[in-house]
């Protein structure tokens, strides 16, 4: 399922993803899930780092955004990324179950929301949304 790199070119047509989560176990699992699907990915530990990495000029096809994080949470990070003009697919992942909280997260600019823990099938359903 891994995309083949373009012949002779520096640029790979592999999908890229950013994992934003303050939990080390979650970061490891999300990284592996993405790796298994052939998706190049990096991880940061809070919303501020997610914003900063975009300020440095990097973009990603997919952002997996946790909600509760120190320094800057997922809601604020999503808002800021959208204000910066980032159009990547942002999928919120959280353990929150209250409708009001999930709605606030979605209204910040999410394209999708999945309840944790993330599984392979949930990740695949997110990716299908990117591909249309």
């Amino acid at each position, binding site marked *: 399922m891994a995309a083949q790199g373009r012949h002779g070119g520096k640029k790979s047509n592999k999908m890229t993803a950013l994992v934003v989560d*303050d*939990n*080390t*176990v*979650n970061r*490891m*699992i999300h990284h*592996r*899930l993405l*790796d*298994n699907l052939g998706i190049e990915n990096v991880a940061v530990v809070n919303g501020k780092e997610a914003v900063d990495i975009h300020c440095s000029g990097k973009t990603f096809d997919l952002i997996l955004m946790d909600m*509760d994080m*120190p320094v800057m949470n997922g809601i604020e990070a999503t808002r800021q990324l959208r204000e910066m003009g980032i159009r990547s697919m942002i999928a919120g992942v959280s*353990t929150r179950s209250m409708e009001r909280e999930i709605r606030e997260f979605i209204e910040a600019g999410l394209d999708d929301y999945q309840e*944790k*823990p993330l*599984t*392979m099938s949930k990740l695949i359903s997110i990716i299908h949304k990117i591909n249309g």
Partner: protein
Amino acid sequence: MAIAALKTQRRNLVQSMFDEGVLDNQFNQLQDLQDSSNPNFVEEVISLFCNDAERIITELNRYLNDQNVDFSKLDSYVHQLKGSSSSIGAYRLKLACVNLRQASEERNMEECAGAFNSIRREYYVVRSKLQVLIQLERHIVNLENQQ
């Protein structure tokens, strides 16, 4: 054949952990992520989880024994442990975390103490069973490699 017997033992151990609610289906997700390119993935995640969990349990113990309990700090740590437990499929430990969060929200110190003891107990149960599982896995792999 030794390998077959060990595999049966491993299967039975995992099944008993599911039956007792020590593990839930999320653990299967973890096992599915392990393959020949990442043959130690489950062990690595469990190791990371245990280090993290022990650090958090130490902090929780410290905060609960303070004169003036900082419930917000407590909540933040329990949230972390709940998240990790849920991600590896440690079902009963996750429930114990939910109970502590509830008790903490209600500022009920007695309930907090009880819930924290449950967390400690459930953590040691899941850790010891997972350690046995890891040992079995290693033994099986060693025997398979010798063949």
